[in-house]
């Protein structure tokens, strides 16, 4: 990959990209030096992903130019960008579940080393460098998030990319995994790779970046030197407001039990390892119980079992004194459970339906959005009104409540879901990663709402991969590993590192 030694690996200037109704990028400038880790910061919807997709040839800019190694280029498709030595790890995994690891990596790059033994050798080599420890014939659907992330990176490297775009690669990783990733990045930087790194976690940005470019509302507002800025000033640059913190103030925990789970078991698919075994916990009114765990250790299943989306193999679930183990999801919701799912697009929203219709989801049998009765009449006017209330109270940025949910940015979608789930006075809120992928401003808003509801006596079961958030919001924390609750932690004293160690079983417990 020897090219003329220009100072900048890539240089984007005057990039403008318009979507119907929005200008995603407007006259953006970005210059990335060879061999640096260049961070890109900005609130949700600022236009980071769009800019990167343009650099990667997935979208064509309306205006502006791109130069790679000082040479002006025009990318018509990712194939062109790949040829120019650019690789991208996307914000959302770009993996085909039903193809094997090797197939996912080889796809589109069959010409590099063929599809035979040579290719496998090369994959094995690269897998070692990024710490990917799975057989190449395994279907990707069987991998956990961290491994998927690694497969994504191997994919990029396999194509011989020298400039690698990482769009929010750490959103789903625990601190240890982030550290591992960073050491890989540093080693590769030393070997001459260039990285463009996007993250909402500003301390991470400060830890890894050599240069930071900040984007606000689609334009680049400037660059910052990570050695001289603090995360606070960086956040202010991004959103023009103060950096929030998830600290809980005084405890509001009461002794009234809201949720009691006893000995919950859940069998694995096709008779595999049990997904949950003997899980027991209690959440009281006014309490936030945090569950820490690396993804794939049963948190999702725990939540879905409590919600009735999966049928427990054994054990009991009691809500406010009432046994709901056999109840349907809707009955559980009617009994007062609110649910912020981990994946809002899969479990929280109807993408093509307007916001007000999304307000009805999960509440289709209850006032104010439904009149009930034999026919189960809905009250569309009331649904619209209540959606407007949520939009106002939770600061959902939308032109109206009639736009489809898909038209909202991720953060705004999340605010809508949280607002909906806090409607109708729930007694228990199950919140999975409530601020994942949400920018700092929106994050603060969601935290504030959670605290307020807690003060009113709401019990919260919180699952989060963001350990600062978990520690900051929870009144107590349990650690989940391979379908069991293996440890308790006190949020007042525990550090993210300790928690991370317990989550991976690296604190001496694990085999």
């Amino acid at each position: 990959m020897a090219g003329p030694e220009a100072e900048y690996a890539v240089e984007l200037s005057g990039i403008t990209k318009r979507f119907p109704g929005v200008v995603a990028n407007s006259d953006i400038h970005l210059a990335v030096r060879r061999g640096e880790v260049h961070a890109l910061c900005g609130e949700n919807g600022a236009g980071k992903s769009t800019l990167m997709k343009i650099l990667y040839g997935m979208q064509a800019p309306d205006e502006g130019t791109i130069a790679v190694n000082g040479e002006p280029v025009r990318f018509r498709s990712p194939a062109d960008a790949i040829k120019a030595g650019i690789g991208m790890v996307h914000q959302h995994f770009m993996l085909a579940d039903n193809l094997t690891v090797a197939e996912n990596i080889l796809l589109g790059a069959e010409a590099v080393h063929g599809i035979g033994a040579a290719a496998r050798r090369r994959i094995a080599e690269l897998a070692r460098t990024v710490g990917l420890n799975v057989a190449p014939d395994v279907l990707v659907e069987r991998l956990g998030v961290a491994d998927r992330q690694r497969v994504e990176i191997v994919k990029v490297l396999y194509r011989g990319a020298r400039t690698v775009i990482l769009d929010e690669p750490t959103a789903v990783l625990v601190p240890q995994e982030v550290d591992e990733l960073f050491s890989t990045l540093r080693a590769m930087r030393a070997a001459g790779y260039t990285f463009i790194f996007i993250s909402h976690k500003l301390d991470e940005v400060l830890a890894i970046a050599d240069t930071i470019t900040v984007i606000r509302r689609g334009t680049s507002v400037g660059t910052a030197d990570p050695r001289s800025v603090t995360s606070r000033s960086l956040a202010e640059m991004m959103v023009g407001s103060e950096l929030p913190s998830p600290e809980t103030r005084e405890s509001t925990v009461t002794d009234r039990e809201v949720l009691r789970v006893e000995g919950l078991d859940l069998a694995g698919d096709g008779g595999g390892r049990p997904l949950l075994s003997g899980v027991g916990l209690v959440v009281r009114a006014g309490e936030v119980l945090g569950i820490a765990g690396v993804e794939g250790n049963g948190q999702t299943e725990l939540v879905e079992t409590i919600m009735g989306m999966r049928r427990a193999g054994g054990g009991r679930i009691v809500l406010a004194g009432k046994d709901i183990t056999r109840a349907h999801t809707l009955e559980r919701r009617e009994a007062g459970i609110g649910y912020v799912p981990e994946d809002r697009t899969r479990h929280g929203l109807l993408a093509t339906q307007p916001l007000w219709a999304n307000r009805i989801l999960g509440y289709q049998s209850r006032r104010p959005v439904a009149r009930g009765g034999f026919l189960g009449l809905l009250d569309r006017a009331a649904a619209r009104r209540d959606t407007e209330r949520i939009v106002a109270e939770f600061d959902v940025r939308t032109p109206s409540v009639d736009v489809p949910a898909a038209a909202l940015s991720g953060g705004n979608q999340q605010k809508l879901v949280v607002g909906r789930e806090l409607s109708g006075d729930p007694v228990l809120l199950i919140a999975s990663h409530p601020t994942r992928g949400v920018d700092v401003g929106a994050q603060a808003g969601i935290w504030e709402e959670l605290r307020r509801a807690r003060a009113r006596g709401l019990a919260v079961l919180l699952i989060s991969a963001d350990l600062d958030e978990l520690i900051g919001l929870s009144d107590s924390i349990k650690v989940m590993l391979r379908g069991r609750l293996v440890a308790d932690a006190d949020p007042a004293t525990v550090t993210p590192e300790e928690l991370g160690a317990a989550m991976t079983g690296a604190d001496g417990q694990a085999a």
Partner: protein
Amino acid sequence: MTRLRTILLPPALAIVFAALLCAVALLISGDSPITALRVMIGQIGEGTTAIDIVNSGAIYYLAALAVAIGFQMKLFNIGVEGQFRLAACAAAIVGGALVLPPVLHTIVIIVVAALVGALWAGIAAVLKAYRGVSEVISTIMLNFIATGLIAFLIRPDSFGVLQGNNISTNPIEPSGQFPGIPFGSSGTLFGMVFLAAALGLGYWFLLNHTRFGFELKASGESPTAATAGGVNARRMVIIALVLSGAVAGLVGLPELLGRDVAYTLTSPQGYGFTGIAVALLGRNHPFGIALGALLWAFLDKSALALDNVGVPREIVLIMQGSVVLSVVVAYEIVRRYELAAEQRRVAAQLREPAPAPVEVSS
């Protein structure tokens, strides 16, 4: 205004395009497209054609409604064909055997038809919900099996009666028939046309104003989100298919109760497949389906008129196929065009105030 244009422009474009295509085909085979067009338009005023179009339209409407109910949930009920035929046959047998006072007799026949249709679809529903059998396969198979079952039912030693070279069920007494509205020499409008319209209205209301409709659409749009929202996916599959089958069961009734009075070997077939095309043409919308059904019926009758003047009537099939295809293509083209227009508009708006990027550096 834009909205109206987005809705009406595509079908208009499509019909023009399909007509052009057919004109070319006609020219190749040496016929005059002008004559064809004149005959097609002219037929409406002749004989019973206008009424026949509405009557057939009502039948297609029912079939398309049945298909659309499934589509709302992304369920593809190819089985409307078998459901309607079996239901019509069973309803004719029951209706012909019963002696009941007028209105009651008719109601019993309608209920039987709906039940049989629902039952037949219910087999596919149960297999889908409990055994994971794709409804596409099961309904295809059930269509064939329904044919066998009908043949069995109307055997002269079962419920059939020999009528010359035909086999027929016992005719339904006038008390069981659904009275139509006679228009003298222009024909008789089936009474069931109004029932079909009422069902369309019911479908629209159910879909947009009730919990059931909401859950149906939600399951169709995102089964995962629906489940998380407390919708019982398995139950919805069953209800949607059974309901679709019940409506399908009514498809044969306008003719049975309004004209034919008995089910015979030569009773019409193929309405189920027409229903699929019409539902898609009408974008599963109750009003759109109505227009689609009328258009389809109009084209169908055109085949007769064209044959009468010696123009090859295969043109009608080509026209139907190309209308279906070009309507959807036209919607896409118009969508893209408006997207581009919107983008230009936004760009123009933004160029005026020209926001200066803030330079911040630290």
